[in-house]
């Protein structure tokens, strides 16, 4: 059986950046396994712009952003397999994949980077009552059919959920001549980026109905309409507020779920909030030598942060392969009072880097709040924020020098005045 120093599962933005970073940190023997027939992952179908502002200080489309990293992988001569679907991984880092060219292959890794990305929540998960006609797509499926395959999926559209893909698709379908009648969002706020609401809905006069959901789906063969209703504070539809919208297409942009089917076999601690594995400040899971980054770890808002996080995972995986660095006790990072979770979930105060970026999302829209960091019960940081929204990822950078010794606890929370 072949043995590789590092196997990266997934050749999307996370996997590419991780592999490049590991190579630059000195790992020679790397293999990227990608199930699609091209590298780049979901970026390939994101033909809109807005990528790369942080990483490259310029505005790129998804394919352009991916191309930059694919070029780096090629420059570094990092081997990759396409059409190679990993079907299982084990605690011992035995990776089994299948492909058309190679058949079923088992390879052993010294270190593994999980970079499988995420998937969209389907209609079924929402349990929307009604019939089951054609014309209901998750926003990303519709995006693929339009942008990669070159087909139109509908003419009169209602979008449920104001996640970023839904917002982008509202604009995309409008530009392609479809009539997007409304975007309905269950929550009292959008789950997407502010800039997308402005550029994709406001600029095209597409109404966003907050605190609304689809309560019934109509149509036998093809969708003929949906019924929307306002929801109360418990997200239950309010009787009497039903409104019928005739449409042939319903796009769902109702959340993304990290794709951790493979991860389960590792028996690592999973976060119930992120649906990804819990990691330490090296982005290492409970299973030694297995690292995670990108949307399989937690769903990001910007790909730039995915690349940054993945580069860190790659660097740490390289250190693991090359020098088996020392590890010590870890301290949990607690998310509290409006902070839903943090990544990493814990850190090793003795061996941590001088600065550790902790990313998180908040639970609701907050105005004029502070993000606070407590160390051993004492506040060490207080950052004023005019607006905090669940759709945007936040971060604080913990400096090793400012953490108390011996470190007992870290708590990140929001506070009013």
């Amino acid at each position, binding site marked *: 059986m072949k043995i590789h120093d590092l196997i990266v599962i997934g050749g999307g933005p996370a996997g590419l950046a991780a592999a490049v970073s590991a190579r630059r940190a000195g790992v020679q023997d790397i293999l990227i396994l990608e*199930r699609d027939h091209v590298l780049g992952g979901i970026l390939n179908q994101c033909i809109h712009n807005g990528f790369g502002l942080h990483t490259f200080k310029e505005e790129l489309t998804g394919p352009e952003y991916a191309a930059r990293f694919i070029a780096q992988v090629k420059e570094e001569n990092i081997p990759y397999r396409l*059409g190679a*679907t990993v*079907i299982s991984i084990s605690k011992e880092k035995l990776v*089994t994949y*299948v*492909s*058309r*060219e*190679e*058949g*079923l292959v*088992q390879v052993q890794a010294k270190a593994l980077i999980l970079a499988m990305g995420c*998937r*969209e929540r*389907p*209609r*079924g*998960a929402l*349990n929307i*009552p*009604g*019939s*089951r*006609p*054609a*014309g209901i*797509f*998750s926003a*990303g*499926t519709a995006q*693929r*059919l*339009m942008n*990669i*395959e*070159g*087909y*139109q*999926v*509908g*003419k009169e559209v209602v979008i449920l959920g104001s996640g970023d893909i839904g917002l982008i698709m509202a604009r995309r379908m409008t530009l*392609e*001549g479809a009539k997007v009648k409304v975007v309905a969002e269950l929550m009292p706020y959008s789950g997407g980026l502010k800039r997308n609401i402005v550029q994709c809905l406001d600029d095209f006069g597409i109404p966003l109905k907050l605190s609304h959901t689809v*309560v*019934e*789906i*109509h149509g*036998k*063969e*093809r969708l003929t309409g949906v019924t929307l209703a306002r929801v109360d504070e418990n997200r239950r*539809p309010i009787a009497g507020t039903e409104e019928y919208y005739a449409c*042939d*297409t319903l796009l769902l942009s109702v959340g993304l779920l990290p*794709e951790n*089917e493979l991860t389960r076999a590792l028996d690592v601690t999973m976060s119930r909030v992120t649906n990804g594995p819990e990691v330490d400040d090296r982005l290492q899971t409970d299973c030694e030598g297995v690292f995670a980054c990108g949307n399989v770890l937690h769903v990001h808002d910007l790909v730039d942060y995915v690349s940054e996080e993945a580069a860190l995972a790659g660097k740490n995986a390289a250190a693991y392969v090359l020098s088996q660095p020392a590890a010590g006790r870890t301290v949990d990072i607690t998310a509290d009072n409006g902070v839903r979770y943090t990544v990493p979930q814990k850190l090793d105060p003795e061996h941590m880097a001088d600065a550790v970026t902790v990313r998180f999302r908040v639970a609701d829209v907050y105005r004029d709040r502070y993000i606070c960091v407590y160390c051993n019960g004492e506040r060490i940081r207080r950052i004023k924020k005019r607006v905090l929204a669940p759709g945007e990822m936040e971060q604080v950078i913990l400096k090793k020098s400012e953490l108390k010794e011996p470190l007992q606890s870290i708590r990140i929370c929001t506070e009013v005045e």
Partner: protein
Amino acid sequence: MRKDYDVVVIGGGVIGCAVARELSRRALRICLIEKGEDVCSGTSKANSGIVHAGFDAKPGTMKAKMNLLGSRMMPKLAEELDIRFKRNGSLVLCLSEEGLPALHELYERGVANGVEGLAILTGDEARRKEPNLSGNAVAALYAPTGGIICPFELTIALAENACANGVEFRRNETVTGISREEDGYLITTDHALIGANCVVNAAGVHADEIHRMVSKLPMHITARKGDYCLLDKEVGGYVSCTVFQLPSALGKGVLVTPTAHGNLLIGPTATDVEDKEQTPTTAAELSYLTKTAALSVRDLPTRSVITSFSGLRAHEDGGDFIIGETPDAENFFEAAGIESPGLTSAPAIGCYLADLIAKKLGAEEKADFVPTRKAIPRLAELPAEERKALIAVNPLYGSIVCRCEQISEGEIVEAIRRPVGAVSLDGVKRRVRAGMGRCQAGFCTPRLMEILSRELHRPMEEICKNVSGSELLTGTMEGRK
């Protein structure tokens, strides 16, 4: 009159396919007409997938007889057709002391029907067997012969086997009229005029409409809708037996069961509906469903629902199956009012009707009848070495299309190319489970459409979810300009 066939079977559900398969043992010219784009597209596609032990039906009824026979035939049939069947056992829960007499009555009925191995368990005994059972269960009827089967697999395997033995399948064809001629029947469809000696009515919820085309005797079928929720495989082991509650007048009530494929299924509700074509789920029923199922087990994991759907039961006013030659229409045979335990009874009904017809027509057994059929290989379930060997022979088995269920392009191509093959996304899904997993076809839809388009030589815009009219695309980008 010109005779195109000896026997025309109307309806490609599990009953029609079972009758056709049994008839194909004989030297007869047979065709099956199905109005859907595929077999297994009515009641057979949306039911509980249970092989009932046989304690429910009143002793002496056709339901009781066919249930027991069908349940006994199932193991051999499953082996012949290479489909999954598991005797996982059934439990009927009694959730209050007041229910105990009814539970005992059910036990007695089961014994009278000839069901083997029945036992009444105390609540604690039942919970030892099934740890997630509700603490409120005071007693339970245990039936070790209860089982689970995949209704798609059974129906499609019967169809494939019937086809291999000479039955002609005419899908996408609707019977619009039947006239009785001197020496047979003339069947009018939306495509053709078909002459036959003998007709079998297995039209499910529409059986009464077909019946009225030839018979003056009363028959009335009510479509009784049942909503279901399907849960993720991660909770497929939540119960190992099929867990019922004490039955009511409308049916066997809401059950919680593992499926043959390892998901967890809860359902069905029971609501009589007017429209026999539309089967929308309703918020009220889905909510009733989860509430009622939650009475059977502790902490029902409703977070793990991956889809909900509904099916229609064909309930005849008389309450029993109507199986046999229609008294006022010679050579017109019927299997009507086939509601639960219809799936279980299908093999028995198939044999029963085929025997009657063969006798009536004096048809001989064929020497070359092939009773077996091989399933499409299920690569995800094979050990690595076998999987490797298969991919070496057919590289398409190495290309995974449906990630959730790990279904390869090779399996999908086979589902399309087989006799009575898939012609729609739903057809592929029912044959090989592509799109049946937790992402509900989010990722694989474009790939599946592409493969269907290539294999069927149809443009992408013509690829349908199921029947004509359910096209997924509305045009090409170029077409807009």
